[in-house]
């Protein structure tokens, strides 16, 4: 039985490893893309997916769900950044 924090860590790691492999394939250019990078990234993704496949489904689903829920805090951050940009660009403010 894998402890919940370690399970969450493996889920997060697997997501980013898979996303990077998809990025490498999507942007593949013959003769320009690094074969070593593609190979090591695929190995990294395969290992992390294999590790995450051994986790309980409830934990995987719960971890992803909680992360997407926490993502909602980024809307507050974005609104503060936008407030700063808007205030800096009001005509006559500078």
């Amino acid at each position, binding site marked *: 039985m894998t402890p919940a924090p370690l399970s969450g860590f493996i889920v997060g790691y*697997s997501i980013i490893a898979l996303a990077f492999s998809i990025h490498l394939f999507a942007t593949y250019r013959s003769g320009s893309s690094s074969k070593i990078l593609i190979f*090591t990234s695929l190995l990294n993704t395969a290992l992390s997916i294999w590790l995450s496949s051994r986790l309980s489904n409830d934990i995987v689903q719960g971890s992803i769900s909680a992360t997407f829920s926490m993502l*909602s805090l980024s809307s507050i951050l974005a609104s503060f950044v936008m407030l700063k940009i808007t205030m800096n660009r009001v005509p006559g403010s500078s």
Partner: protein
Amino acid sequence: MPAIIGGAICVASLSWNRMGPAYRRRRIAPSTFIIGLILILSWDFDSKITDDFLCSFYGSCGTSDLSSVLRYTAIWLALLVSGVALALNGAGSYGDYSIPSLSVGWIMILASVILSLVFHPSGLLTVDTLIKSLPVIVGIMIGLLSIIGLTALSENFEPPLPPASGLDDDERDAILSILAKHLGGGGE
């Protein structure tokens, strides 16, 4: 299953979007992103995990609110991105200062903040949610560091690339039209 394929398509289209206008893949990126988003949102609200391939893949089946959380996140995120784009445009960052564009943008941003924080499918955000998501965020950070490491490793082991070949006719046309658009010429 559609949500996973949709997520993969969204990642691929975002990558294509960063490739530059000379690539054909860049031109189909926006439409591909919309297809990916539709696939994510098409995941049935009432779908149980037992109906999904993940059930047999992970060998542990149950129910989850993940589909509703995903759909809900896509809605407020779309509202936020549209609002930020409108507000940036109205604030004069990418065009003239425009009060209507700025106002509509800010209404959408505030609506997104309210939607994301107040009307959450699992209720208000709790410390438990924060604790549950922290290991995932740490995993994502360490994953990013490992990607930097892998990139440095591959650069050390591979010889430098030869000079890039010249532009073909399509690429030359694309570059000329962009330069003409930004310099105000006739594209000739």
